């Protein structure tokens, strides 16, 4: 059990970095900046001439299908060439991907901490789920909360999944640690409660499983030899309202960066 820490630290908030707190503005700005960077990287890591030729060939074969539509052998051979040219184009277009996939993936993973979920709200119940290594110790698992939090319902055991769930509510804003005790060992999990819109949250703490932890968890691994496999806090997923629609941030980023990328590639005369 630990005392709450400040949740408004600028070093931990995108809002602090960008000086804005609106997730919509953050996603729009990120889309613009990242798409510009990606388009420029694409320009210098791709074979522009080969891409232009591949795209031209694709268009030619499409036109051939239309121009010689009465000649079935021509149509079929054009279709075959379209497939081959598409493969060639994809190969050329994805070569630059190798240069950006790692940094961009890591960046998106980090952004997902801020933009994928919203922090918990004081007074609104949430679930804490613990998964153990075996069913035997399920009854020995207990949840220790800071004074600002309370359990609102008895624990639910799900032996089939080796899981125990608690319904919890927080009274005040803060960055807390809840503690799970089992087999004489304690395991903590961070819980963020705030009305602030942009805060870094980690929904799960995992034992081992490096790749899953890398993509989904923002906390250190649970000790390997302990009985607890995972401690999860169910944060509400974030929806961003944009253009009259509710968006998952990644879809909005996808659409906006495509539009911005199209704009930048046209302005900078880059072949994509």
């Amino acid at each position: 059990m630990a005392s709450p820490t400040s949740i408004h630290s600028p070093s931990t908030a995108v809002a602090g970095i960008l000086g804005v707190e609106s997730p919509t503005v953050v996603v729009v700005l990120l889309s613009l900046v990242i798409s510009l960077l990606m388009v420029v990287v694409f320009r210098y890591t791709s074979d522009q001439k080969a891409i232009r030729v591949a795209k031209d060939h694709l268009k030619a074969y499409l036109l051939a299908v239309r121009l010689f539509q009465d000649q079935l052998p021509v149509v079929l051979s054009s279709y075959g060439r379209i497939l081959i040219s598409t493969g060639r184009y994809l190969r050329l277009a994805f070569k630059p991907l190798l240069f950006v996939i790692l940094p961009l993936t890591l960046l998106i993973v980090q952004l997902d901490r801020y933009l994928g979920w919203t922090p918990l709200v004081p007074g609104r119940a949430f679930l804490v789920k613990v998964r153990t290594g075996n069913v035997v110790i399920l009854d020995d698992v207990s949840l220790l909360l800071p004074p600002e939090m309370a359990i609102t319902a008895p624990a639910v055991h799900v032996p089939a999944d080796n899981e125990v769930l608690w319904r919890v509510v927080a009274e005040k804003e803060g960055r807390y640690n809840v503690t799970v005790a089992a087999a004489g060992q304690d395991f903590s999990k961070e819980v963020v409660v705030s009305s602030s819109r942009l805060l870094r949250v980690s929904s799960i703490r995992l034992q081992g499983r490096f790749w899953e932890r890398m993509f989904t968890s923002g906390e250190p691994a649970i000790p390997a030899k302990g009985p607890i496999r995972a401690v999860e806090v169910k944060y509400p997923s974030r929806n961003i309202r944009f253009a009259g629609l509710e968006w998952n941030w990644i879809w909005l980023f996808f659409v906006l960066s495509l539009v911005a990328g199209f704009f930048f590639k046209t302005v900078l005369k880059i072949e994509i």
Partner: protein
Amino acid sequence: MSCPQIQSGRKRNWSKRISLIVIILGIILLCPVHSQAYAGPGAGFAVISSFWTLFVAFLYSVYAFLTWPFRHLFRLLRRRRVPGKAQIKRAVILGFDGMDPVLATRFINEGKLPNLAKLRGRGTFRNLRTTFPAISPVAWSTFMTGVNPGKHNIYDFLARDLSNYLPFLSSAEVRPPKRTLKIGKYTIPLGKPRIRGMRRGTPFWHWLGKAGISCSVIRIPATFPPEKFPGVLLSGMCVPDLKGSQGTFCFCSTRSVGDEFREGGVRVPMERHGSVCRSYIPGPPDPLAGSSGGELRVPFEVRPETNQTRITVGSEKFTLKVGAYSDWIAVKFKGTLGASAHGICRFYLKELSPEVEIYVTPVNIDPGRPDLPISHPVTYSIYLAKLFGPYATLGLAEDTWALNEEVLDDQAFLAQCYANHEDRERMLFDALDKTRHGLCACVFDTTDRVQHMFWRYLEENHPAARKVPRDQRTNVIEDLYCRMDVLVGRVMKQIDEHTLLLVVSDHGFKSFARCVNLNAWLHQNGYLALKSGKSESGDWFEDVDWSHTRAYTMGLNGLYVNVKGREREGIVQSGAGAEALKQELRDKLNGLVDPASGAVGITGMFDCDAIYSGPYVDNAPDLIVGYGEGFRASWDSVMGKVTSEIFEDNLKAWSGDHCIDPRLVPGVLFSNCKIAEEKPGIADVAPTILKLFGLDLPTHFDGKPLTVTIDIAP
């Protein structure tokens, strides 16, 4: 450890690292959660556009596949109207503009043209009667329509305006849109430019297309503007450049002096600004400037380096060495209020030091983005551009004027010719691939242009070659014929035993060593009068006194009577008066002798009333002048200029010609089939093809179907 072992170990380490990176990236790609499955707009574009391409292709294919039986049935039903049975599956026509039967025979006999020799041995080789006059747009119009010029209305490159005696292009007219909106100093066009084709008659591929027979027609002259028909066609000779001319090159130089070019090109100053030189490419008139006629320009910048130069045109940057051409460069002429025109051109660095001189080809209509239709359907030119890259679209794409004016040298001109030729070959073989049944026809202009410009090296004493030492006179024409023979061989390998192959030329070639200024003769013999005090006239009859002029000539072979009531200031009574004058001119000019050599300069004078029939004979000249071998209308005479000398040497590189007595310059007809007729004519090709595909022949044809024995030689 030895060095190779160290290297081997390093290689292994590197390959391990690369493998590890690939595995990691693979895992990342294969095991993403929802929020990490996107890697930037580049990947997004690639995926989306690929998907879209495949989706559209799939839809097209499904559509084509599902509807093909119905369309095939429809074609069969339509083809039921074809009364006869097709004797051939496919006809391939190679048009070698200007291939001469005398030269072809000579080179075949010398063993230099094995493929044409094979056609001659196993199939057919004949002289092909050409048209009166023997000029490409005239002859190819007859080739495609099967009729004499009186029915297709093309008598020369130029025709004359009866209201002012000025010339206009005979095959097509491009005019501004009919309606415009004038706002202040701007004239906004409301609509597209009006393009009117003036060739009449129906090309035989229209009949084939209507009968459901596939047709691919590439660069046959006098096919601009392209006409709608069931098939694909790329227009040839007569397609204008972006300025609307038949080819205006641009010569940019830092030299301050230089004469204006007589025709075909413009000089543009290039200004030095420190280490940078700046110049521009002149373009079409600004469409919004109206009659005030502002010219659109594309500026470019030249940065000379040691052995090469960097050139920047818009967003395009490239380097050029002396004596080298650039690729086709896309240029955009930006007008006011967002109006623009798209073209392509090539740069040639002629000199880098001490002065900078750059030749720029005429700005061709961009085939990938045509501002004027140059193909049918419009997408065909785009298809070819996407498949093979930009290509020359100008009708007279080989810049003979630039060689005449010595802006280009022999090698630079040939490089340009053969670059265009190679593009044409690619188009031909693509058309052969796409047209397994039906007609595939393609005309190559290289034969014409190269013979025009290099005939001087075939003769010992051609006036145009006097400056060139004998050991520097190359076998350009022989090489040309060998190249064409190789092309024939490649085509022969592509075709099967059900394909008829015809190699056709519209006319042959002869020397052009002496110029005849017929206007000078008419003046000296009292048929053409000059204004008081003048002994010569400028271009286009500038100083001609029409009120006392009975006859005049312009263009290459036409001679006109100044008929009262027809010409604006005509004085010769039509009917008996004009007939008598024509007879008088025929008698006097036929057999006209060159006093310098005693050779006959004119071997035939042909009355157009006798040689033409059809609804357009009124547009024909009154007489066709048949120049003797070695002679042709002088450069001045063609442009309506009256000089004091009737005969003079031709000193230009343009040293061979065919605009002479048509009986002296028949074309060639090679075939892989036996043809019975001894004297076929170019008008016979259209009816022959229609008959071989089993179609009825239109009654208005002047040509007769040839007797072809379909026993295709292997």
